[in-house]
Protein backbone atom coordinates (compact mmCIF):
# COMPACT_ATOMS: atom_id res chain seq x y z
CA UNK A 1 0.00 0.00 0.00
CA UNK A 2 2.65 2.54 0.97
CA UNK A 3 5.25 4.04 -1.25
CA UNK A 4 8.46 2.42 -0.07
CA UNK A 5 10.85 5.10 -1.31
CA UNK A 6 9.41 8.20 0.31
CA UNK A 7 9.09 7.38 3.99
CA UNK A 8 12.63 6.01 4.22
CA UNK A 9 14.18 9.02 2.53
CA UNK A 10 12.36 11.55 4.67
CA UNK A 11 13.03 9.55 7.78
CA UNK A 12 16.71 9.64 6.97
CA UNK A 13 16.75 13.29 6.05
CA UNK A 14 14.65 14.95 8.65
CA UNK A 15 16.88 14.55 11.70
CA UNK A 16 19.98 15.54 9.80
CA UNK A 17 18.65 18.66 8.19
CA UNK A 18 16.32 19.93 10.83
CA UNK A 19 18.87 22.49 11.96
CA UNK A 20 18.90 24.28 8.62
CA UNK A 21 15.35 23.76 7.36
CA UNK A 22 15.18 27.19 5.72
CA UNK A 23 18.03 26.46 3.34
CA UNK A 24 17.14 22.92 2.41
CA UNK A 25 13.38 22.94 1.98
CA UNK A 26 12.57 24.03 -1.58
CA UNK A 27 10.71 27.28 -2.19
CA UNK A 28 7.28 26.02 -3.21
CA UNK A 29 7.05 24.22 0.07
CA UNK A 30 7.77 27.38 2.10
CA UNK A 31 5.11 29.14 0.10
CA UNK A 32 2.74 26.35 0.94
CA UNK A 33 3.47 26.61 4.64
CA UNK A 34 2.84 30.33 4.55
CA UNK A 35 -0.38 29.95 2.69
CA UNK A 36 -1.54 27.37 5.15
CA UNK A 37 -0.61 29.59 8.05
CA UNK A 38 -2.50 32.46 6.50
CA UNK A 39 -5.56 30.30 6.01
CA UNK A 40 -5.26 29.11 9.56
CA UNK A 41 -5.05 32.67 10.83
CA UNK A 42 -8.08 33.69 8.81
CA UNK A 43 -9.96 30.68 10.10
CA UNK A 44 -9.04 31.59 13.62
CA UNK A 45 -10.20 35.15 13.04
CA UNK A 46 -13.64 33.96 11.95
CA UNK A 47 -13.68 31.63 14.93
CA UNK A 48 -12.94 34.54 17.25
CA UNK A 49 -15.93 36.42 15.87
CA UNK A 50 -18.24 33.49 16.50
CA UNK A 51 -16.85 33.02 20.00
CA UNK A 52 -17.32 36.70 20.75
CA UNK A 53 -20.88 36.50 19.46
CA UNK A 54 -21.56 33.50 21.67
CA UNK A 55 -20.28 35.44 24.66
CA UNK A 56 -22.43 38.44 23.78
CA UNK A 57 -25.52 36.26 23.44
CA UNK A 58 -24.76 34.51 26.71
CA UNK A 59 -24.31 37.77 28.57
CA UNK A 60 -27.42 39.16 26.88
CA UNK A 61 -29.55 36.33 28.22
CA UNK A 62 -27.99 36.63 31.61
CA UNK A 63 -28.07 40.41 31.83
CA UNK A 64 -31.60 40.83 33.24
CA UNK A 65 -30.71 38.42 36.04
CA UNK A 66 -27.46 40.22 36.69
CA UNK A 67 -29.35 43.51 36.75
CA UNK A 68 -31.77 42.10 39.28
CA UNK A 69 -28.92 41.01 41.55
CA UNK A 70 -27.20 44.40 41.18
CA UNK A 71 -30.40 46.26 41.97
CA UNK A 72 -30.81 44.17 45.07
CA UNK A 73 -27.68 45.79 46.46
CA UNK A 74 -28.81 49.34 45.68
CA UNK A 75 -30.57 51.95 47.73
CA UNK A 76 -34.11 52.54 46.57
CA UNK A 77 -33.23 55.94 45.04
CA UNK A 78 -30.48 54.38 42.89
CA UNK A 79 -32.91 51.83 41.54
CA UNK A 80 -35.17 54.40 39.88
CA UNK A 81 -32.88 56.44 37.69
CA UNK A 82 -32.81 57.42 34.07
CA UNK A 83 -30.18 56.65 32.80
CA UNK A 84 -29.76 53.53 34.93
CA UNK A 85 -27.14 53.69 37.66
CA UNK A 86 -24.20 51.39 37.21
CA UNK A 87 -21.85 52.61 39.91
CA UNK A 88 -23.10 52.62 43.46
CA UNK A 89 -22.09 51.64 46.94
CA UNK A 90 -23.55 48.19 47.62
CA UNK A 91 -25.77 47.81 50.64
CA UNK A 92 -27.41 44.89 52.36
CA UNK A 93 -30.29 47.05 53.59
CA UNK A 94 -32.78 45.59 51.14
CA UNK A 95 -32.02 42.01 52.12
CA UNK A 96 -32.40 42.92 55.78
CA UNK A 97 -35.68 44.67 55.06
CA UNK A 98 -37.01 41.76 53.05
CA UNK A 99 -36.08 39.17 55.62
CA UNK A 100 -37.36 41.41 58.38
CA UNK A 101 -40.76 41.66 56.71
CA UNK A 102 -41.33 37.91 56.96
CA UNK A 103 -39.82 36.51 53.80
CA UNK A 104 -37.69 34.24 55.92
CA UNK A 105 -40.76 32.17 56.78
CA UNK A 106 -41.76 31.82 53.15
CA UNK A 107 -38.25 30.73 52.21
CA UNK A 108 -38.40 28.12 54.94
CA UNK A 109 -41.81 26.99 53.72
CA UNK A 110 -40.47 26.68 50.19
CA UNK A 111 -37.43 24.78 51.38
CA UNK A 112 -39.58 22.44 53.45
CA UNK A 113 -42.12 21.78 50.70
CA UNK A 114 -39.35 21.27 48.17
CA UNK A 115 -37.24 18.97 50.33
CA UNK A 116 -40.09 16.82 51.60
CA UNK A 117 -41.85 16.53 48.24
CA UNK A 118 -38.56 15.61 46.54
CA UNK A 119 -37.91 12.97 49.18
CA UNK A 120 -41.40 11.59 48.60
CA UNK A 121 -40.86 11.58 44.84
CA UNK A 122 -37.69 9.56 45.27
CA UNK A 123 -39.28 7.19 47.79
CA UNK A 124 -42.18 6.46 45.43
CA UNK A 125 -40.30 6.91 42.18
CA UNK A 126 -37.18 4.78 42.64
CA UNK A 127 -39.10 1.52 43.21
CA UNK A 128 -41.51 2.41 40.41
CA UNK A 129 -38.69 3.20 37.97
CA UNK A 130 -37.09 -0.10 38.93
CA UNK A 131 -40.34 -1.97 38.29
CA UNK A 132 -40.55 -0.32 34.86
CA UNK A 133 -37.01 -1.07 33.77
CA UNK A 134 -34.79 -3.78 35.24
CA UNK A 135 -37.54 -6.12 36.36
CA UNK A 136 -40.36 -4.86 34.20
CA UNK A 137 -43.99 -5.52 35.02
CA UNK A 138 -46.37 -6.62 32.32
CA UNK A 139 -47.77 -3.75 30.27
CA UNK A 140 -44.86 -1.49 31.15
CA UNK A 141 -45.57 0.70 28.14
CA UNK A 142 -49.14 1.32 29.25
CA UNK A 143 -48.06 2.30 32.74
CA UNK A 144 -45.44 4.67 31.36
CA UNK A 145 -48.04 6.11 29.04
CA UNK A 146 -50.36 6.72 31.96
CA UNK A 147 -47.71 8.49 34.02
CA UNK A 148 -46.71 10.78 31.19
CA UNK A 149 -50.31 11.53 30.27
CA UNK A 150 -50.88 13.03 33.71
CA UNK A 151 -48.25 15.62 32.86
CA UNK A 152 -50.22 16.51 29.77
CA UNK A 153 -53.23 17.39 31.88
CA UNK A 154 -53.30 21.17 32.38
CA UNK A 155 -53.20 21.98 36.06
CA UNK A 156 -56.19 24.31 35.76
CA UNK A 157 -58.32 21.29 35.00
CA UNK A 158 -57.90 19.98 38.51
CA UNK A 159 -57.40 23.10 40.59
CA UNK A 160 -61.09 23.64 41.34
CA UNK A 161 -61.83 20.25 42.86
CA UNK A 162 -58.46 20.30 44.57
CA UNK A 163 -59.36 23.60 46.16
CA UNK A 164 -62.76 22.27 47.21
CA UNK A 165 -61.28 19.05 48.61
CA UNK A 166 -58.39 20.75 50.38
CA UNK A 167 -60.80 23.28 51.83
CA UNK A 168 -63.18 20.57 52.97
CA UNK A 169 -60.53 18.60 54.81
CA UNK A 170 -59.20 21.76 56.42
CA UNK A 171 -55.82 21.67 54.70
CA UNK A 172 -56.03 25.13 53.18
CA UNK A 173 -52.92 27.16 53.97
CA UNK A 174 -51.21 23.98 55.07
CA UNK A 175 -47.79 23.14 53.63
CA UNK A 176 -48.61 19.41 53.50
CA UNK A 177 -51.25 20.02 50.88
CA UNK A 178 -48.55 21.51 48.66
CA UNK A 179 -46.19 18.64 49.43
CA UNK A 180 -48.75 16.09 48.23
CA UNK A 181 -49.42 18.05 45.05
CA UNK A 182 -45.76 18.71 44.29
CA UNK A 183 -45.04 15.02 44.72
CA UNK A 184 -47.76 14.15 42.23
CA UNK A 185 -46.56 16.90 39.90
CA UNK A 186 -42.96 15.68 39.78
CA UNK A 187 -43.46 11.93 40.10
CA UNK A 188 -44.07 11.22 36.39
CA UNK A 189 -41.00 13.16 35.28
CA UNK A 190 -38.90 11.51 37.96
CA UNK A 191 -40.08 8.02 37.06
CA UNK A 192 -39.39 8.52 33.37
CA UNK A 193 -36.04 10.09 34.01
CA UNK A 194 -34.86 7.53 36.55
CA UNK A 195 -36.10 4.73 34.34
CA UNK A 196 -33.81 6.00 31.62
CA UNK A 197 -30.91 5.75 34.06
CA UNK A 198 -31.93 2.28 35.23
CA UNK A 199 -32.07 1.11 31.64
CA UNK A 200 -28.40 1.94 31.28
CA UNK A 201 -27.53 -0.63 33.94
CA UNK A 202 -26.75 -3.98 32.33
CA UNK A 203 -29.38 -6.45 33.56
CA UNK A 204 -26.65 -9.09 33.95
CA UNK A 205 -25.44 -7.22 37.02
CA UNK A 206 -28.60 -8.21 38.85
CA UNK A 207 -28.17 -11.79 37.66
CA UNK A 208 -24.52 -11.84 38.66
CA UNK A 209 -25.44 -10.57 42.10
CA UNK A 210 -28.16 -13.16 42.51
CA UNK A 211 -25.69 -15.89 41.50
CA UNK A 212 -23.28 -14.50 44.05
CA UNK A 213 -25.89 -15.17 46.68
CA UNK A 214 -27.35 -11.69 47.14
CA UNK A 215 -31.08 -11.26 47.67
CA UNK A 216 -32.86 -8.87 45.34
CA UNK A 217 -32.90 -6.17 48.00
CA UNK A 218 -29.18 -6.54 48.62
CA UNK A 219 -28.43 -6.58 44.92
CA UNK A 220 -30.37 -3.37 44.41
CA UNK A 221 -28.80 -1.67 47.41
CA UNK A 222 -25.21 -2.79 46.85
CA UNK A 223 -24.97 -2.95 43.09
CA UNK A 224 -27.73 -1.01 41.32
CA UNK A 225 -28.22 2.05 43.51
CA UNK A 226 -24.53 3.02 43.63
CA UNK A 227 -24.55 2.95 39.83
CA UNK A 228 -27.63 5.07 39.32
CA UNK A 229 -26.99 7.47 42.18
CA UNK A 230 -25.72 10.26 39.90
CA UNK A 231 -28.93 9.92 37.90
CA UNK A 232 -31.03 9.96 41.05
CA UNK A 233 -29.22 13.07 42.24
CA UNK A 234 -29.90 14.80 38.92
CA UNK A 235 -33.54 13.77 39.11
CA UNK A 236 -33.79 15.15 42.63
CA UNK A 237 -32.32 18.46 41.52
CA UNK A 238 -34.85 18.76 38.74
CA UNK A 239 -37.69 18.04 41.18
CA UNK A 240 -36.22 20.73 43.43
CA UNK A 241 -36.30 23.25 40.59
CA UNK A 242 -39.90 22.50 39.67
CA UNK A 243 -41.32 22.46 43.17
CA UNK A 244 -39.42 25.51 44.33
CA UNK A 245 -40.61 27.52 41.34
CA UNK A 246 -44.22 26.33 41.53
CA UNK A 247 -46.68 29.21 41.81
CA UNK A 248 -50.17 28.18 40.74
CA UNK A 249 -50.97 25.71 43.52
CA UNK A 250 -49.19 27.84 46.07
CA UNK A 251 -51.05 31.02 45.28
CA UNK A 252 -54.42 29.27 45.33
CA UNK A 253 -53.98 26.97 48.28
CA UNK A 254 -51.88 28.96 50.74
CA UNK A 255 -52.36 32.30 52.42
CA UNK A 256 -50.19 33.23 55.37
CA UNK A 257 -48.80 30.33 57.35
CA UNK A 258 -47.84 28.13 54.42
CA UNK A 259 -46.99 30.84 51.92
CA UNK A 260 -44.02 29.98 49.72
CA UNK A 261 -41.30 32.29 48.44
CA UNK A 262 -42.69 32.84 44.92
CA UNK A 263 -46.07 33.79 46.37
CA UNK A 264 -44.43 36.21 48.76
CA UNK A 265 -43.24 38.19 45.74
CA UNK A 266 -46.87 39.03 44.94
CA UNK A 267 -46.89 41.28 47.99
CA UNK A 268 -44.40 43.54 46.26
CA UNK A 269 -46.61 44.45 43.33
CA UNK A 270 -49.68 45.22 45.36
CA UNK A 271 -49.84 47.61 48.26
CA UNK A 272 -48.20 50.99 48.13
CA UNK A 273 -46.43 50.86 44.77
CA UNK A 274 -43.16 49.27 43.84
CA UNK A 275 -39.91 49.23 45.68
CA UNK A 276 -37.55 47.95 43.00
CA UNK A 277 -34.49 47.43 45.09
CA UNK A 278 -36.42 45.61 47.76
CA UNK A 279 -38.31 43.62 45.15
CA UNK A 280 -35.01 42.69 43.53
CA UNK A 281 -33.60 41.54 46.84
CA UNK A 282 -36.67 39.38 47.42
CA UNK A 283 -36.54 38.01 43.88
CA UNK A 284 -32.86 37.24 44.24
CA UNK A 285 -33.48 35.34 47.45
CA UNK A 286 -36.37 33.46 45.88
CA UNK A 287 -34.47 32.59 42.72
CA UNK A 288 -31.03 31.86 44.08
CA UNK A 289 -31.53 28.28 45.36
CA UNK A 290 -32.96 26.94 42.13
CA UNK A 291 -30.51 28.77 39.93
CA UNK A 292 -27.71 27.07 41.82
CA UNK A 293 -29.50 23.71 41.70
CA UNK A 294 -29.97 24.14 37.96
CA UNK A 295 -26.37 25.08 37.37
CA UNK A 296 -25.29 21.92 39.18
CA UNK A 297 -27.76 19.74 37.27
CA UNK A 298 -27.31 21.41 33.89
CA UNK A 299 -25.81 18.37 32.20
CA UNK A 300 -28.84 16.28 33.11
CA UNK A 301 -31.39 19.06 32.66
CA UNK A 302 -32.27 18.07 29.11
CA UNK A 303 -32.86 14.53 30.17
CA UNK A 304 -35.29 15.61 32.87
CA UNK A 305 -37.13 18.11 30.68
CA UNK A 306 -37.53 15.58 27.87
CA UNK A 307 -38.65 12.81 30.24
CA UNK A 308 -35.43 10.90 29.66
CA UNK A 309 -35.93 10.79 25.91
CA UNK A 310 -32.83 12.84 25.14
CA UNK A 311 -29.58 11.93 26.82
Amino acid sequence: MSDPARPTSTAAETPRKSASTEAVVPRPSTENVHRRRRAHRKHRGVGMIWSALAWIVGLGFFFPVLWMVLTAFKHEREAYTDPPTLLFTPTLDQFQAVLGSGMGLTLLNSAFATAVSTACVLALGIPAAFALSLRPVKRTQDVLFFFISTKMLPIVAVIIPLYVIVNEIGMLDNIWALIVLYTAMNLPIAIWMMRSFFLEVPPELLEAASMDGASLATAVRRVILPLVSPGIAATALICVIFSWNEFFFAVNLTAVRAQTAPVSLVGFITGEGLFWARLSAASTLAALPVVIAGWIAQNKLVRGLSFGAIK
Partner: protein
Amino acid sequence: MTKQSTISRAEGWRRRGPLLPALIFTIVVTQVPFAFTLYYSTQSWNLVRPGSREFIGLRNYLYVFRDSQFREVALNTVILIAGTVLISAVLGLAVALLLNRTFRGRGVVRTLVITPFLITPVAGALLWKTAMFDPVFGLVNFVLQPLGLGDVEWVSQFPLASVMANLIWRWTPFMMLLILAGLQSMPTDVLEAGRVDGAGPITLFRELTLPHLRRFIELGVVLGAIYLINTFGAVYMMTQGGPGVESANLPFYIYQRAFLGFDIGQAAAMGVITVVATILISTLALRLLFKTFTATREAA
Protein backbone atom coordinates in the same frame (compact mmCIF):
# COMPACT_ATOMS: atom_id res chain seq x y z
CA MET B 1 -49.36 -26.30 34.74
CA THR B 2 -51.32 -24.84 37.64
CA LYS B 3 -48.21 -24.89 39.78
CA GLN B 4 -46.31 -22.99 37.13
CA SER B 5 -48.96 -20.33 36.69
CA THR B 6 -49.25 -19.68 40.42
CA ILE B 7 -45.50 -19.19 40.57
CA SER B 8 -45.62 -16.69 37.76
CA ARG B 9 -48.55 -14.91 39.37
CA ALA B 10 -46.57 -14.55 42.58
CA GLU B 11 -43.64 -13.32 40.56
CA GLY B 12 -45.96 -10.87 38.80
CA TRP B 13 -47.00 -9.37 42.12
CA ARG B 14 -43.42 -9.27 43.32
CA ARG B 15 -42.60 -7.20 40.26
CA ARG B 16 -45.68 -5.04 40.52
CA GLY B 17 -45.19 -4.38 44.23
CA PRO B 18 -42.66 -1.58 43.93
CA LEU B 19 -44.76 0.14 41.30
CA LEU B 20 -48.06 0.19 43.11
CA PRO B 21 -47.52 3.00 45.66
CA ALA B 22 -46.51 5.44 42.94
CA LEU B 23 -49.30 4.31 40.64
CA ILE B 24 -52.04 4.51 43.24
CA PHE B 25 -50.79 7.84 44.54
CA THR B 26 -50.77 9.32 41.04
CA ILE B 27 -54.23 8.02 40.23
CA VAL B 28 -55.67 9.40 43.45
CA VAL B 29 -54.06 12.83 43.22
CA THR B 30 -54.50 13.47 39.50
CA GLN B 31 -57.37 11.38 38.15
CA VAL B 32 -59.86 11.66 40.96
CA PRO B 33 -59.87 15.47 40.96
CA PHE B 34 -60.36 15.48 37.22
CA ALA B 35 -63.39 13.26 37.64
CA PHE B 36 -64.72 15.89 40.04
CA THR B 37 -64.01 18.59 37.48
CA LEU B 38 -66.13 16.68 34.99
CA TYR B 39 -68.88 16.45 37.58
CA TYR B 40 -68.69 20.13 38.60
CA SER B 41 -68.88 21.17 34.97
CA THR B 42 -72.45 19.87 34.91
CA GLN B 43 -73.45 21.93 37.94
CA SER B 44 -74.71 25.45 38.23
CA TRP B 45 -72.66 26.33 41.25
CA ASN B 46 -71.59 29.75 42.42
CA LEU B 47 -69.88 29.96 45.78
CA VAL B 48 -71.29 33.45 46.37
CA ARG B 49 -74.81 32.10 46.30
CA PRO B 50 -74.86 29.16 48.69
CA GLY B 51 -77.59 26.64 48.07
CA SER B 52 -77.84 27.59 44.43
CA ARG B 53 -76.18 24.36 43.32
CA GLU B 54 -78.09 22.27 40.80
CA PHE B 55 -77.54 19.92 37.90
CA ILE B 56 -77.80 21.68 34.55
CA GLY B 57 -76.33 19.12 32.15
CA LEU B 58 -74.13 20.56 29.47
CA ARG B 59 -75.48 24.08 29.75
CA ASN B 60 -72.24 25.37 31.27
CA TYR B 61 -70.45 24.40 28.09
CA LEU B 62 -73.03 26.33 26.11
CA TYR B 63 -72.46 29.41 28.26
CA VAL B 64 -68.74 29.05 27.87
CA PHE B 65 -68.89 28.83 24.10
CA ARG B 66 -71.21 31.85 23.98
CA ASP B 67 -68.81 33.81 26.17
CA SER B 68 -66.92 36.11 23.79
CA GLN B 69 -64.29 36.71 26.46
CA PHE B 70 -63.62 33.00 26.62
CA ARG B 71 -63.10 32.91 22.88
CA GLU B 72 -60.69 35.82 23.09
CA VAL B 73 -58.82 34.14 25.90
CA ALA B 74 -58.64 30.86 23.99
CA LEU B 75 -57.18 32.72 21.03
CA ASN B 76 -54.72 34.50 23.32
CA THR B 77 -53.63 31.14 24.67
CA VAL B 78 -52.97 29.79 21.21
CA ILE B 79 -51.08 32.93 20.17
CA LEU B 80 -49.04 32.91 23.35
CA ILE B 81 -48.08 29.26 23.05
CA ALA B 82 -47.49 29.18 19.30
CA GLY B 83 -45.61 32.49 19.25
CA THR B 84 -43.42 31.63 22.20
CA VAL B 85 -42.66 28.12 21.02
CA LEU B 86 -41.83 29.05 17.44
CA ILE B 87 -39.73 32.10 18.20
CA SER B 88 -37.95 30.25 21.00
CA ALA B 89 -37.22 27.36 18.69
CA VAL B 90 -35.65 29.61 16.06
CA LEU B 91 -33.62 31.56 18.62
CA GLY B 92 -32.76 28.34 20.43
CA LEU B 93 -31.43 26.84 17.23
CA ALA B 94 -29.26 29.89 16.62
CA VAL B 95 -27.87 29.88 20.15
CA ALA B 96 -27.33 26.13 20.06
CA LEU B 97 -25.30 26.47 16.87
CA LEU B 98 -23.19 29.17 18.53
CA LEU B 99 -22.62 26.95 21.54
CA ASN B 100 -21.88 23.81 19.55
CA ARG B 101 -18.39 25.10 18.72
CA THR B 102 -15.56 24.68 21.15
CA PHE B 103 -14.30 28.00 22.42
CA ARG B 104 -12.86 29.47 25.55
CA GLY B 105 -15.49 29.68 28.26
CA ARG B 106 -18.12 27.64 26.45
CA GLY B 107 -19.30 26.04 29.69
CA VAL B 108 -19.67 29.44 31.32
CA VAL B 109 -21.64 30.82 28.39
CA ARG B 110 -23.96 27.84 28.46
CA THR B 111 -24.48 28.33 32.17
CA LEU B 112 -25.31 31.99 31.58
CA VAL B 113 -27.77 31.16 28.81
CA ILE B 114 -29.75 28.60 30.81
CA THR B 115 -30.17 30.86 33.81
CA PRO B 116 -33.39 32.52 32.54
CA PHE B 117 -34.98 29.09 32.41
CA LEU B 118 -34.03 28.31 35.99
CA ILE B 119 -35.02 31.53 37.65
CA THR B 120 -38.34 31.45 39.49
CA PRO B 121 -40.95 32.36 36.83
CA VAL B 122 -42.65 34.85 39.10
CA ALA B 123 -39.37 36.62 39.78
CA GLY B 124 -38.57 36.63 36.08
CA ALA B 125 -41.96 38.10 35.25
CA LEU B 126 -41.55 40.85 37.84
CA LEU B 127 -38.10 41.59 36.51
CA TRP B 128 -39.44 42.13 33.01
CA LYS B 129 -42.41 44.13 34.17
CA THR B 130 -40.21 46.50 36.16
CA ALA B 131 -36.55 46.64 35.29
CA MET B 132 -36.98 45.84 31.61
CA PHE B 133 -40.34 47.29 30.54
CA ASP B 134 -40.91 50.23 32.87
CA PRO B 135 -41.75 53.19 30.60
CA VAL B 136 -39.50 55.64 32.45
CA PHE B 137 -36.77 53.70 34.17
CA GLY B 138 -36.80 50.46 32.19
CA LEU B 139 -33.77 49.17 30.35
CA VAL B 140 -35.64 48.45 27.13
CA ASN B 141 -36.65 52.04 26.64
CA PHE B 142 -33.20 53.18 27.72
CA VAL B 143 -31.66 51.10 24.96
CA LEU B 144 -34.26 52.21 22.41
CA GLN B 145 -34.00 55.92 23.28
CA PRO B 146 -31.35 56.67 20.63
CA LEU B 147 -33.73 55.20 18.06
CA GLY B 148 -36.50 57.58 19.09
CA LEU B 149 -38.62 54.84 20.66
CA GLY B 150 -37.85 55.67 24.24
CA ASP B 151 -41.33 56.27 25.62
CA VAL B 152 -43.34 53.14 24.86
CA GLU B 153 -45.48 51.83 27.69
CA TRP B 154 -44.77 48.24 26.81
CA VAL B 155 -46.85 46.39 29.35
CA SER B 156 -50.00 48.48 28.98
CA GLN B 157 -49.75 49.10 25.23
CA PHE B 158 -48.67 45.59 24.22
CA PRO B 159 -49.64 43.38 27.14
CA LEU B 160 -49.72 40.06 25.32
CA ALA B 161 -46.47 40.76 23.48
CA SER B 162 -44.81 41.78 26.74
CA VAL B 163 -45.81 38.54 28.39
CA MET B 164 -44.59 36.69 25.35
CA ALA B 165 -41.23 38.49 25.44
CA ASN B 166 -40.76 37.32 28.99
CA LEU B 167 -41.74 33.78 28.03
CA ILE B 168 -39.41 33.73 25.02
CA TRP B 169 -36.54 34.85 27.22
CA ARG B 170 -37.41 31.97 29.50
CA TRP B 171 -38.02 29.25 26.90
CA THR B 172 -35.26 29.93 24.39
CA PRO B 173 -32.74 28.30 26.77
CA PHE B 174 -35.01 25.25 26.96
CA MET B 175 -35.09 24.92 23.19
CA MET B 176 -31.37 25.60 23.05
CA LEU B 177 -30.65 22.76 25.48
CA LEU B 178 -32.70 20.26 23.48
CA ILE B 179 -31.26 21.32 20.15
CA LEU B 180 -27.73 21.42 21.52
CA ALA B 181 -28.19 17.84 22.73
CA GLY B 182 -29.27 17.01 19.21
CA LEU B 183 -26.24 18.71 17.68
CA GLN B 184 -23.94 16.86 20.01
CA SER B 185 -25.49 13.53 19.20
CA MET B 186 -24.81 14.14 15.51
CA PRO B 187 -22.28 11.58 14.30
CA THR B 188 -19.23 13.44 12.99
CA ASP B 189 -18.40 10.81 10.40
CA VAL B 190 -21.57 11.67 8.48
CA LEU B 191 -20.47 15.30 8.27
CA GLU B 192 -17.00 14.21 7.25
CA ALA B 193 -18.44 12.00 4.54
CA GLY B 194 -20.48 14.98 3.33
CA ARG B 195 -17.42 17.19 3.27
CA VAL B 196 -15.47 14.59 1.31
CA ASP B 197 -18.37 14.45 -1.12
CA GLY B 198 -17.87 18.14 -1.73
CA ALA B 199 -20.65 19.78 0.27
CA GLY B 200 -20.11 23.30 1.61
CA PRO B 201 -21.06 24.34 5.16
CA ILE B 202 -24.49 25.63 4.17
CA THR B 203 -25.34 22.50 2.19
CA LEU B 204 -24.07 20.34 5.05
CA PHE B 205 -26.31 22.21 7.47
CA ARG B 206 -29.37 22.01 5.26
CA GLU B 207 -28.94 18.46 4.02
CA LEU B 208 -27.49 16.72 7.06
CA THR B 209 -27.64 18.73 10.27
CA LEU B 210 -31.17 20.06 9.98
CA PRO B 211 -32.77 16.68 9.16
CA HIS B 212 -30.94 15.19 12.13
CA LEU B 213 -32.15 18.02 14.36
CA ARG B 214 -35.74 17.75 13.18
CA ARG B 215 -36.67 15.20 15.79
CA PHE B 216 -35.19 17.32 18.55
CA ILE B 217 -36.85 20.51 17.37
CA GLU B 218 -40.21 18.76 17.09
CA LEU B 219 -39.84 17.36 20.56
CA GLY B 220 -38.86 20.79 21.86
CA VAL B 221 -41.87 22.43 20.23
CA VAL B 222 -44.31 19.86 21.53
CA LEU B 223 -42.89 19.66 25.05
CA GLY B 224 -42.62 23.44 25.15
CA ALA B 225 -46.28 23.73 24.21
CA ILE B 226 -47.27 21.32 26.96
CA TYR B 227 -45.29 23.16 29.59
CA LEU B 228 -46.56 26.52 28.29
CA ILE B 229 -50.22 25.56 28.56
CA ASN B 230 -49.73 25.90 32.30
CA THR B 231 -48.35 29.44 32.06
CA PHE B 232 -49.83 31.38 34.92
CA GLY B 233 -47.25 33.28 36.96
CA ALA B 234 -46.13 35.48 34.08
CA VAL B 235 -49.66 36.65 33.29
CA TYR B 236 -50.54 37.02 36.93
CA MET B 237 -47.49 39.11 37.73
CA MET B 238 -47.12 41.20 34.60
CA THR B 239 -50.62 42.14 33.50
CA GLN B 240 -53.24 40.37 35.62
CA GLY B 241 -54.71 39.42 32.25
CA GLY B 242 -55.57 43.00 31.49
CA PRO B 243 -56.56 45.34 30.19
CA GLY B 244 -59.86 43.49 30.09
CA VAL B 245 -58.90 40.01 29.05
CA GLU B 246 -56.49 41.24 26.41
CA SER B 247 -53.55 39.35 27.84
CA ALA B 248 -55.33 36.59 29.77
CA ASN B 249 -54.73 32.98 28.92
CA LEU B 250 -56.91 30.02 29.85
CA PRO B 251 -55.31 29.18 33.20
CA PHE B 252 -55.54 32.78 34.30
CA TYR B 253 -59.11 33.22 33.08
CA ILE B 254 -60.26 30.02 34.72
CA TYR B 255 -58.54 31.10 37.90
CA GLN B 256 -60.35 34.43 37.70
CA ARG B 257 -63.73 32.83 37.13
CA ALA B 258 -63.26 30.31 39.89
CA PHE B 259 -61.48 32.23 42.61
CA LEU B 260 -62.52 35.78 41.94
CA GLY B 261 -65.89 35.15 40.28
CA PHE B 262 -66.58 32.01 42.34
CA ASP B 263 -68.32 30.44 39.33
CA ILE B 264 -67.22 26.86 39.92
CA GLY B 265 -69.44 25.24 37.30
CA GLN B 266 -68.35 27.35 34.35
CA ALA B 267 -64.73 27.39 35.39
CA ALA B 268 -64.82 23.60 35.53
CA ALA B 269 -66.35 23.44 32.08
CA MET B 270 -63.53 25.63 30.76
CA GLY B 271 -61.05 23.34 32.41
CA VAL B 272 -62.55 20.36 30.63
CA ILE B 273 -62.41 22.20 27.32
CA THR B 274 -58.75 23.03 27.92
CA VAL B 275 -58.04 19.38 28.57
CA VAL B 276 -59.77 18.26 25.41
CA ALA B 277 -57.75 20.77 23.41
CA THR B 278 -54.58 19.66 25.12
CA ILE B 279 -55.22 16.02 24.30
CA LEU B 280 -54.68 16.91 20.68
CA ILE B 281 -51.16 18.19 21.29
CA SER B 282 -50.51 15.53 23.87
CA THR B 283 -51.15 12.63 21.55
CA LEU B 284 -48.61 14.09 19.21
CA ALA B 285 -46.20 14.60 22.08
CA LEU B 286 -46.60 11.08 23.35
CA ARG B 287 -46.03 9.59 19.95
CA LEU B 288 -42.89 11.68 19.56
CA LEU B 289 -41.65 10.81 23.01
CA PHE B 290 -42.13 7.12 22.46
CA LYS B 291 -40.52 7.31 19.06
CA THR B 292 -37.51 9.21 20.33
CA PHE B 293 -37.33 6.96 23.32
CA THR B 294 -37.34 3.71 21.39
CA ALA B 295 -34.99 5.15 18.79
CA THR B 296 -32.38 5.98 21.39
CA ARG B 297 -32.80 2.54 22.89
CA GLU B 298 -32.09 0.94 19.56
CA ALA B 299 -29.07 3.11 19.03
CA ALA B 300 -27.65 2.14 22.41
